[in-house]
């Protein structure tokens, strides 16, 4: 058993752990090899020798399976046409087989691109992975010609950047691993491959930097992923909900990103990155609440500007959560808080509205949320129309009809804009939902209700952990040294240490002097 903080040989240990628990064979470079048939479709076939007829029987009624025959060599070739790369197949397999003499085939199959498979399972698994399988009477060989269709590297639509790199993760896990490896050219960057989903057999890569990461976190994360028992895993956000500490909390507990530069930044801080095949989102863990208010651009801008922007986001957080609720509270119960100069305007504005502030605010917030949801789901051209219609309805018609007051429009619009200032979409969505709870509490119990709501939020946040580390660090437990990385964006000469949440023994991040 690896001790806490013992980083040496971590990859070997993690791989061994995985092997031991699954009884699997280990492949090269820390990758995990053979995969048992967990779906129970044909478990008995595991030990059988791979043969063309058995594999064909396994894939019966699979019309997309391609079969090529080379009678002069006694070779049959099986593969899924859409999972292999046509060029790779032609170069490495077809041309070789077409030009080969029966006598020299045995020598050709000893080439490095062909791997002999000893079990039926490996052959089936190879085909499903997009490899081509050659069958002869005396055995079967895999040819790695996999090149499944996928999106190329494009900019992320969710996480934009003004000054930073513009490449984003795509749905292909191996491409995502490559995007990280390109930026971290170190043999200490490890990528452990796991498989999740009894039907989907989705590849999940757990990446970390040996000697920087805390082994306990890796052990915990791999153990949780291994314990996932689900038929199909589609997306990284789905995996997050299956492995987080408290699934019933409203707050997202794992940081997710579509940007390789952020993933690399997190890895260098001693975090773990989890890549799920089929998802452009990469999970990083452990995370703290403060990380959800940090953006990639923070590290590319001058530190004073970046710190200013961070404070803008914290203020946006307060506005989006409490501004409308505060409006409801003061216009329902606490008129004494309003400055006299504003009181007349507010009274005039409210005079024409027949509803109590609670209903007025809920009506407007629901309208804004419906517009946002409609805009998010519709094509961009129609989405613009929705925006214009919504703007007119909300901005003018609702006020003229006496449905709402002008000041509420400003309040609701400010809250909505503030929610989009928060870089993490998941966090922004959670906060928008929290807002409704606070509005109701403020409408019923005024400022006391608002504080009660904040009390529940604080209770929840204090109780939250990510991989059993505090979600509220560096606020609670209070750690002032982490503030310069997570709360403000300190100048680079001051960012000498990794954050305490990483619990790394290798805390020195930078040796720069001022």
């Amino acid at each position, binding site marked *: 058993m690896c001790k806490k903080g013992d980083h040496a040989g971590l990859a070997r240990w993690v791989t061994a752990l995985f092997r031991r628990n699954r009884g699997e064979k280990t492949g090269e470079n820390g990758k995990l090899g053979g995969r048992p048939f967990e779906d129970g479709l044909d478990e008995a076939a595991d030990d059988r020798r791979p043969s063309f007829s058995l594999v064909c029987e396994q894939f019966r009624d699979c019309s997309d399976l391609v079969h090529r025959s080379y009678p002069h060599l006694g070779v049959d070739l099986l593969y899924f046409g859409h999972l292999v790369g046509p060029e790779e197949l032609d170069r490495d397999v077809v041309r070789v087989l077409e030009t080969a003499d029966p006598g020299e085939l045995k020598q050709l199959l000893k080439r490095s691109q062909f791997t002999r498979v000893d079990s039926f399972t490996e052959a089936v698994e190879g085909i499903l992975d997009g490899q081509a399988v050659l069958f002869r009477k005396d055995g079967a060989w895999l040819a790695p010609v996999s090149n499944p269709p996928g999106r190329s590297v494009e900019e992320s639509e969710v996480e934009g950047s003004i000054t930073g790199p513009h490449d984003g993760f795509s749905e292909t896990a191996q491409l995502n691993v490559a995007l990280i490896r390109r930026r971290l050219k170190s043999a200490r960057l490890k990528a452990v491959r796991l498989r999740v989903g009894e039907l989907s057999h989705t590849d999940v890569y757990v990446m970390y930097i040996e000697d920087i990461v805390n082994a306990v976190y890796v052990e915990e994360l791999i153990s949780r992923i291994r314990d996932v028992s689900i038929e199909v895993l589609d997306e990284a956000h789905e995996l997050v909900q299956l492995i987080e500490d408290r699934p019933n909390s409203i707050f997202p507990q794992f940081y997710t990103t579509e940007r390789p530069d952020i993933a690399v930044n997190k890895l260098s801080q001693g975090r773990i990155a989890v890549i799920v095949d089929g998802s452009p989102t990469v999970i990083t863990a452990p995370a703290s609440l403060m990380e959800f208010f940090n953006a990639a651009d923070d590290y590319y801008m001058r530190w004073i500007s970046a710190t200013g922007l961070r404070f803008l986001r914290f203020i946006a957080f307060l506005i989006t959560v409490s501004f409308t609720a505060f409006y409801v509270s003061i216009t329902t119960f606490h008129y004494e808080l309003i400055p006299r100069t504003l009181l007349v305007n507010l009274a005039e504005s409210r005079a024409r509205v027949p509803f109590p502030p609670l209903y007025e605010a809920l009506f407007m917030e629901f309208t804004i949320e419906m517009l946002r949801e409609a805009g998010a789901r519709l094509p961009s051209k129609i989405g613009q129309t929705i925006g214009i219609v919504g703007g007119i309805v909300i901005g003018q018609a609702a006020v003229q009809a006496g449905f709402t007051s002008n000041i509420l429009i400003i309040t609701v619009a400010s809250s909505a804009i503030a929610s989009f200032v928060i870089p993490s979409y998941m966090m922004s969505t959670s906060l928008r939902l929290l807002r409704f709870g606070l509005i109701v509490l403020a409408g019923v119990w005024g400022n*006391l209700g608002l504080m009660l709501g904040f009390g529940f939020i604080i209770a929840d946040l204090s109780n939250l952990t990510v991989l059993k580390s505090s979600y509220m660090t560096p606020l*609670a*437990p209070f750690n002032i040294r982490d503030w310069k990385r997570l709360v403000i964006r300190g100048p680079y000469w001051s960012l000498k240490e990794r954050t305490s949440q990483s619990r790394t023994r290798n805390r020195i991040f930078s040796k720069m002097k001022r």
Partner: protein
Amino acid sequence: MNEKLNPLHIGILIHMTQMGVSVFSLPRVCATYIGTNGWVWVLVIGTVVTANIALMHAAVRLGGGRTLPEMLGLFLPKPVAGALQLALGGMYALSACLTSKQYVLMFELQSFPATNPYVFRAGIDVLILCLVLIGIYNLGKAATLVFLATIPLPMFYLSLLHDVKLVRYTPFFLKDGGNWLEGSFEVFSAFLGFELCLFLLPYVKRGDTRWFYGVYAGNTFSWCMYLALTILAFGFFSFGQLKDLLFPLLEMAGHLTLPIVERVDTLLFTFFFLVSVLTATAYFWMATELFGYVFPGVRKGWFAAFLIGSTYFVSSIPNELGRVSAWLGIMAKLAAGTAIFLPLLLIAGLLAARAWRAKAP
């Protein structure tokens, strides 16, 4: 990864437990019972409280890593120790409930004169239950968050410095006061909450001897804050005014005006809600721990629910602020007596047990 409380969080926990609505009336108490320049009494009682904490420190050190019930069990028969713990637990639970009720009634006085306070209290009790259930380590985190959110608020008072007149600090000390013993108890009760330190031992890192300095630091912080606010109030109001005002510090905040908020006192008192809730939670947590020690087989969550539920009904008997304050005064005296005599009992008992063991063959 079982995390343990560190001295900083212990300090914050102690400070947040000590802070309560009694701080708003502290200058009046000093003026009414102690007299002119009564703020000096905060200095005196603060010293007494520090000495009291030192006694608790000595008791904990004598206990040699034993928890409170283990220490009691060394020199008291089990039924007596159990009964004592249950009585202490009941007292802490009732004090906690009355504290939250006092806050609600004060808030009702300010903003909701026509609303039934029982519904408010039910909502607050649910929040307190949630906070008790998350445990003392996470409660420490919640206290830190509330501390960070509320610590800038006393700074508002600094803007009133220009209204402080030196002439109000008369050259006469402790004149025109009342019953100074009663006043001393009331000032002492504003510091209550430090007895939490007797319960923290199982939640600090084993072998850590520095954790108790957090208790001293937290208490010193509360002490400094009480002293600063009381001195400010004595310079802001005349001696006669201080005697008449129910909550002088709230009245002071009423003189503050900001361009965007008219009545800062209401806002300040609203923010104080979470501080008040934390005080009540810490007391309920202590009560739950004591009950848990006596009945180790029962889950502590059940005790928390039982104590919060039962004290909700008991504390419904006093139905207006004056009566609640009177009940709270009695509970505060009991708690103050306990805070003083419990460590003395522990020290005496532990020394006697040690001597008895040394004599035993």
